[in-house]
């Protein structure tokens, strides 16, 4: 195991987390489920007995008038509504005294008759007899005509009924366990990095310098664990060494200034020069503490922040739908889409401004500033009473989201060296994706159990937690006040990027439709469609989680493929085509859950395939612009343009619904996305390969 590498230590500790979390929770959940099932059985028995008594009473009355059992009429009409009104009861039957089935409703006669004929029906008392027949629990009650037993009424309920009713609990437990593992992973990563590998990585840089005679820095340590103690030992040694050096230099100065013999002064000077030639000590009079920013510092806060936002992903349009009645003369579907569209618009507008603000006030302060509207937005969303204020609070949350995420991007880009920017971006993307999986899934469960509004309160609490983390951990991250930042080129320069046809085609026909599909289909149409089909929020969330899961699986393979083949434009084109075709699934499979699963999976594959190559393509397509404006600005502008697709997606989908219905809207969106992908596929054939420098002729 390498001491300064998180990987192996993290794997071991995550294995421990799986052991400590999954094992006890699985045992307890199964035990609890068993107890719950046992607790339900008496209630089902009582219900079956009540139904059985009622049927027996009515049939016995008819028998009392002298009608033989097999001559009863209208029994089916009597049983059918009873079975319909009590879904836990699977069948009702009437048998004669020897167990021949005379009437039965709900299951096939042959399933039960052999059992009834072999059973000792004389043993059935007034309270009835319960027996297990295959998958059913059967309660037999006597039918009396006067003093004689003329037959029996059988009430059967499904033995798995309770398990089926409680199966949601198991699904919830599975979701909570998976989400907890994701949170555990993030926390362990944080613990390992902050306490072990981060300080040791820093120490390695320091000992490398010291190995070459540079003793200007000492490691810092505030913790009292094993690593902290070790760092203090190294620090002590270096301070001791520094002390000896300072003592020597003080002595040298004393001899130089006080000695009368110039020859001795010169020789002492030589000694001092030799030491200063061999070793470097801090010129400030004492060794300086070595501090370094790391991309991972902000990961947990970013994770918590995005996690908070993802909690409402699966039900946002449904929540809007509940408030939609307050907007007259506007189609309800459009009203439901507006909070998502305006949230995205707020992010698109605020992100460039937040990027500039990050340079001025620093990432820490920007994150804390962004946490304020995000918290207020979430809390007020929970309290919103109409559509207009919901839109206002969601827009405010969007501004906060843009500020906080830009603060994280800014922190990461400053923390990593330019040649390791992709690694830094990986930290950002990984935190967002894991938060997307855990937050979305857990949000559905929380919303199902405690309600939609309280879920926004949970979001607000998580945002505050994230802000507290940033406030505590990034105290020294901000630039010094008044620090001169180079003024970035203005928006007009960025707009000139659109003159680069390759960039424009990539944005308009690949990036924008990808975002349109994401927000229009996944964020808007999926929750609305599934909810209309009677799915609960927790179930909707479980299906929506497929998207980030597929992305997580496909992205690394796609990135490797893109690096290996260098066929980035082709990969983006293929990804777009897959996404477009996937959205046409309702045309083939109908509007049911299967087509939704297929579409979401296709969307995950599509975005997993094209996201990384699309980013990697930008420096090649905009080689000149990247040199002139900087990679970050070009990337930022591309994000702005693609977010226009995020805004358009839900609105377009909502406009399609009144025209073609839910499935038609999905297919309509698919046609739009597919058409744009086809245009990109054709145009990308003319891209060529390598950097494009012809736009250098563009007058700056």
């Amino acid at each position, binding site marked *: *195991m*390498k*001491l300064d590498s998180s990987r192996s*230590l993290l794997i071991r500790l995550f294995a*421990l*987390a799986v*052991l*400590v*979390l999954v*094992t*006890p929770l699985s*045992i*307890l959940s199964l*035990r*609890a*489920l068993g*107890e*719950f099932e046992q607790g*339900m059985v008496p*209630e089902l028995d*009582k*219900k079956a007995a009540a*139904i059985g008594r009622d049927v027996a009473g009515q049939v016995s009355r008819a028998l009392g008038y002298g009608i033989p059992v097999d001559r009863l009429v209208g029994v089916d009409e009597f049983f059918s509504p009873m079975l319909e009104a*009590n879904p*836990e009861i699977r069948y009702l039957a009437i048998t004669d005294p020897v167990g021949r089935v005379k009437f039965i409703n709900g299951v096939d006669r042959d399933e039960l008759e052999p059992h009834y004929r072999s059973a000792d029906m004389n043993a059935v008392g007034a309270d009835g007899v319960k027996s297990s027949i295959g998958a059913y629990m059967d309660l037999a009650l006597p039918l009396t005509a006067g003093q004689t037993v003329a037959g029996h009424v059988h009430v059967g309920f499904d033995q798995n009924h309770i398990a089926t009713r*409680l199966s949601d*609990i198991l699904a*919830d*437990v599975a979701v*909570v*366990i998976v989400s907890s593992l994701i949170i*555990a992973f993030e*926390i362990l990563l944080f613990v390992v990095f902050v*306490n*072990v590998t981060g300080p040791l990585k820093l120490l*390695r840089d320091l*000992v490398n310098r010291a*190995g*070459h005679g540079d*003793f200007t820095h000492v490691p810092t340590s505030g913790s*009292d*664990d*094993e*690593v902290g*103690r*070790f760092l203090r*030992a*190294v620090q002590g*040694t270096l301070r001791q*060494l520094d002390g*000896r*050096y300072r003592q*020597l230099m003080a*002595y040298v100065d004393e001899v130089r200034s006080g000695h*009368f013999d110039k020859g*001795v002064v010169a*020789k002492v000077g030589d000694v001092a020069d030799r*030491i200063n030639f*061999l070793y470097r000590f801090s010129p400030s009079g004492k060794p300086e503490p070595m501090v370094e920013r790391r991309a991972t510092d902000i990961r947990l806060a970013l994770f918590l922040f995005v996690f908070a936002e993802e909690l409402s992903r699966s039900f946002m349009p449904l929540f809007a739908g509940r408030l939609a009645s307050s907007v007259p003369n506007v189609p309800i579907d459009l009203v439901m889409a507006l909070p998502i569209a305006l949230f995205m618009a707020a992010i698109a507008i605020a992100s460039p401004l937040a990027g500039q603000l990050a340079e001025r006030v620093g990432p820490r302060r920007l994150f804390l500033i962004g946490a304020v509207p995000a918290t207020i937005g979430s809390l007020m969303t929970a309290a919103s009473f109409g559509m207009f204020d919901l839109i206002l609070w969601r827009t405010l949350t969007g501004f906060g989201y843009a500020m906080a995420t830009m603060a994280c991007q800014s922190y990461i880009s400053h923390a990593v060296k330019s040649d390791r920017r992709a690694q830094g971006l990986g930290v950002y993307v990984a935190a967002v994706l894991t938060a997307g999986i855990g937050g979305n899934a857990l949000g559905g469960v929380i919303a199902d*159990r405690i309600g939609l509004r309280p879920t926004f309160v949970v979001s607000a609490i998580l945002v505050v937690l994230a802000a507290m983390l940033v406030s505590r951990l990034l105290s020294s991250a901000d630039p010094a006040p008044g620090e001169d930042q180079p003024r970035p080129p203005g928006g007009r320069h960025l707009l000139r990027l659109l003159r680069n046809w390759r960039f424009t085609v990539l944005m308009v026909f690949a990036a924008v439709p990808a975002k349109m599909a994401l927000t229009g289909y996944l964020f808007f149409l999926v929750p609305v469609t599934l909810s209309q089909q009677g799915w609960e929020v927790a179930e909707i969330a479980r299906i929506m989680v497929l998207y980030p899961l597929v992305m997580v699986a496909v992205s690394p393979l796609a990135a490797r493929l893109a690096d290996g083949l260098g066929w980035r434009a082709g990969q983006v084109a293929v990804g777009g085509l897959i996404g477009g075709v996937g959205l046409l699934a309702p045309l083939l499979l109908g509007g049911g859950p299967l087509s939704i699963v297929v579409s979401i999976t296709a969307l995950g594959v599509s975005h997993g395939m094209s996201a990384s190559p699309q980013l990697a393509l930008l420096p090649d397509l905009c080689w000149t612009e990247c040199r002139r404006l900087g990679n970050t600005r070009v990337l930022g502008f591309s994000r702005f343009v693609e977010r226009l697709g995020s805004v358009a997606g839900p609105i377009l989908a909502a406009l399609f619904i009144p025209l073609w219905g839910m499935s038609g809207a999905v297919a309509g969106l698919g046609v739009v996305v597919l058409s744009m992908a086809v245009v990109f596929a054709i145009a990308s054939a003319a891209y060529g390969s390598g950097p494009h420098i012809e736009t250098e002729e563009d007058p700056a």
Partner: protein
Amino acid sequence: MAWSLSRKVSVALLGILLSTMVMTGAFGYYKFQSVLSDQVNSRYSFVVFTIKRKIEDRLALGLALRALRQIQELAELEKARDSQILGIQIYDSNREVLFDTDRGTIGSRVPSTWLEPLSAQGTQPFSLTDEDSALVGLPLVNTLGKVEGAVVLRYPATYLEQELGRLLQRLAGEFAVVLLGSAVLSVIAASWLLRDVRQRLVAMENTLNQSVTKGAPAKPGRDAFEGDFVRFCGKAREAVEQIGEASDEVERLDRLA
């Protein structure tokens, strides 16, 4: 109290475990409560439905609700069948109690709020709560579709809590035992997993002390990090010696006067 690495990891894991257990426990409990409550309601709704049907059969014969004397026996029979049923009442649309398993209340009036569900819900079962009891009821409708009154069944509001309380107590005990077991396991396992890190840090610290202060040669490292650290120790030792020699030389030169 010193916070060792294994303690930090264990506390983080146990914090997550505890919150996950509380969350799954709470979610599971509320789901079970809701399913059980639905089941209890559905059972009592059925009992009320059977009484309603019998009353409406008689109303269909043109009899007045007030005149259906057998209903009193019917209600008492249903109550006798289930010890959890506190009472069954039949009241008319003027709020007057016509039949009640507690015969003393016949002739009294039900709260006016009990009439609200009759107009609002038509033929659907409705639920009400009284001081310490829960009620399930169904309106009584004659053949002309006019609501004549309602039949309500009363059962203890604490019935569910009693049923669930025992279950919860048992499960809470098991939760505590499992949490304790996991805590012990997590502390031991974290300590074992981090043993290598701890031992190597101690070894490097010893190397540093031996090498720099006592001048002993540093042992070669197990990996690149330890290799770099050994080089650092050597360099630090070398610097100590160089500075020491330089100090001696300066002192010697100073004394040359």
